[in-house]
């Protein structure tokens, strides 16, 4: 990052501080040119960008600030086996070639560091406070957990960043999400973010960057903060972040790409200046009472259609606006659900534990805690997909893989898997899943598939019973 210093005339939010320190040029009649500290690329949204560079005869300007990994279309079965889907294989091979040709470090399909792009950045210590981070993926906001301004970009912009390490951007509005209080047992980070989105709607944060703050956010681990920031885009915000604190510094310290020695001290002194100044103001604000939160679950076809797990599915006939009413009615038709009663007890065909939202070691530990010594319902396919090969190794070192397989769940290789259903891991038409992923759009987990988004605890509890289950009601 650039200079964070400077006698600021007015108190600033962390969002403004990171923005200000990345301004490269500001010309009249054009958006601001900002510098990108870290660019993550994957196989699905980059091929046309590399093709563009070749057409123009351009190089990658800063391969040392760029990292590739394959995650979206890669199978999650045994990596020593051939890839069955030849179109996916072609894409993966092209990706490796592109990274090699342009000198970009990358984690190939058989790398011990391969994993979901938003899991590996933090894991390797590449994601650090105060940075700008981009990736051709809308869940890039995950990296905001470190106090980075991190957002998803399209393929044209992937090409811009590869070529120039810069992007043309207009500043966003600032949106304070203040969460105060103590979470009850069975309620976690996923429930905070699903609650936020259910309140503001999936377009509620459009044009904004969220800053998550308050005592509840401070009490969250880094992995929990990543879960919250990850779904910022589902509330319409391109980015969402948490100001760094000792939790952040302790997580970053000692990781492979983290600063060492004097570099660390220098970095720390700069990072400590990042948090929002007292007296800084936001364009928008919302308050969430953590004491009142319940485990959340979605019933519809976008992430804003969420309810506390004990609450009834809303009734379209009670909605005044005709377009809104039809949107809800259409969602319930697709989901084949009645309104007016809770989802509790609704049969489930598949439970998916994974994705950039909930595939880190703490997520797997939480799920394993519920499944330990028990068997999943034989009618349910339960897939556990670690976010990276490093998460997988760690889980195996702790014996979590045995907990899962003994319970009757599948233990797979790292990737996006059934979150986006590009790699063969998918629902059959009409099937229902309880999924720890981030999107419940029509067909997202497979054509005709129906998704209930929830936390790893709710997913694991539902895996045991075969129906949507409130983890708090399980007998211990």
């Amino acid at each position, binding site marked *: 990052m650039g200079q964070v210093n400077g006698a600021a005339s007015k108190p600033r939010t962390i969002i403004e501080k990171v923005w200000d320190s990345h301004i490269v040029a500001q010309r009249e009649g*054009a958006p601001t040119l900002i510098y990108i500290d870290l660019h993550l690329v994957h196989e699905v949204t980059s091929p*046309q960008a590399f093709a563009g560079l070749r057409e123009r005869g351009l190089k990658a300007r800063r391969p040392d600030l760029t990292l590739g990994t394959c995650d979206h279309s890669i199978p999650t079965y045994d990596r020593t086996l051939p890839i069955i889907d030849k179109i996916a294989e072609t894409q993966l091979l092209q990706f490796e070639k592109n990274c090699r040709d342009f000198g970009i*470090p990358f984690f190939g399909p058989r790398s011990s560091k391969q994993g979901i792009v938003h899991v590996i950045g933090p894991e390797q210590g590449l994601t*650090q406070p105060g940075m700008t981070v981009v990736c051709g993926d809308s869940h890039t906001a995950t990296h905001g957990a470190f106090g980075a301004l991190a957002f998803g970009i399209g393929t*044209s912009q992937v090409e811009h960043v590869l070529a120039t390490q810069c992007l043309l951007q*207009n500043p966003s509005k600032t949106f304070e999400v203040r969460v105060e209080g103590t979470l009850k047992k069975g309620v976690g980070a996923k429930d905070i973010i699903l609650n936020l989105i259910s309140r503001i709607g*999936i*377009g509620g944060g459009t044009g904004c960057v969220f800053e998550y703050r308050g005592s509840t956010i401070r009490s969250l681990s880094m992995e929990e903060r990543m879960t919250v920031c990850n779904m910022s885009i589902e509330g319409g915000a391109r980015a969402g972040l948490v100001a760094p604190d000792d939790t952040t510094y302790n997580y970053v310290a000692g990781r492979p790409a983290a600063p060492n020695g004097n570099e660390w001290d220098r*970095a720390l002194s700069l990072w400590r200046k990042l948090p929002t100044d007292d007296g800084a103001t936001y364009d928008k604000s919302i308050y969430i009472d953590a004491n009142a939160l319940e485990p959340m679950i979605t019933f519809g076809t976008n992430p804003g259609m969420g309810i506390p797990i004990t609450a009834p599915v809303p009734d379209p006939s009670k909605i005044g606006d005709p377009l809104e009413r039809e949107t809800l009615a259409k969602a319930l038709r697709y989901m084949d659900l009645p309104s007016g009663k809770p989802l509790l007890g609704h049969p489930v065909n598949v439970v998916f534990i994974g994705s950039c939202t909930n595939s880190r070691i703490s997520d797997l530990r939480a799920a394993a805690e519920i499944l330990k010594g028990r068997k999943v319902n034989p009618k349910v396919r339960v897939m556990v997909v670690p976010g990276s090969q490093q998460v997988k190794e760690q889980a195996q070192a702790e014996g979590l893989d045995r907990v899962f397989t003994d319970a009757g769940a599948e233990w797979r290789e790292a990737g996006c898997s059934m979150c986006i259903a590009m790699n063969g891991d998918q629902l059959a038409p009409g099937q229902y899943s309880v999924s720890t992923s981030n*999107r419940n759009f029509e067909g997202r987990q497979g054509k005709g598939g129906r998704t209930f988004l929830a936390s790893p605890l709710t997913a694991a509890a539902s895996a045991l019973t075969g129906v949507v289950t409130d983890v708090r009601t399980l007998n211990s």
Partner: protein
Amino acid sequence: MEKFTKFTSRLAPLPIDNIDTDQIIPARFLKTVSKAGLDQNLFCDWRYDAEGNPKPDFILNQPEGRAAQVLLAGDNFGCGSSREHAPWALTQYGFRAVISTSYADIFRGNSLKNSLLPIVVSPDAHKQLFAAIEKDPAATVTVDLAAQTLTLPDGSSVKFPVDEFSKHCMLEGVDELGYILQQEPAIAAYEAARVLTVDTRVVG
């Protein structure tokens, strides 16, 4: 890119809020390494049945929809994933503009880079357009980017916002990268003053 010129067109109405990019182009079609052929799978799961036959009630399978260069959609169009395949698929199909009351940020930015104009209208004008198309499926609108006006079927005009830079790029048929490359001295100066950095080669 071709220059974006004034045009008059019919409308393809999709009166649904929050149409996400997974509906515009499902993820299973993103395994391609090129841009070609995405239009064939535009709105695939709404457009075709399980056997791959066109669903007659879907607007793009009707003569009015096929003739349209303007998509009239519900609020918050293009939410969800960052895939630029969405505007690629829409423009390949023949759409040159979308009309809605709002767009998701990433989709809006991607569209402007691909000569697809995301027109924002007021809720009143939005309702008026859906009513007009209901009354006469052959109703037309005129899109004038230079003047930033949309002429409605009743002949009245509404202004729409667009940032100056995107407008310039679309009208001239130039992309942003050329402009950014011209900023090389500023980029080099910024790089020379950077304080903290990472090196991905340490891990890769």
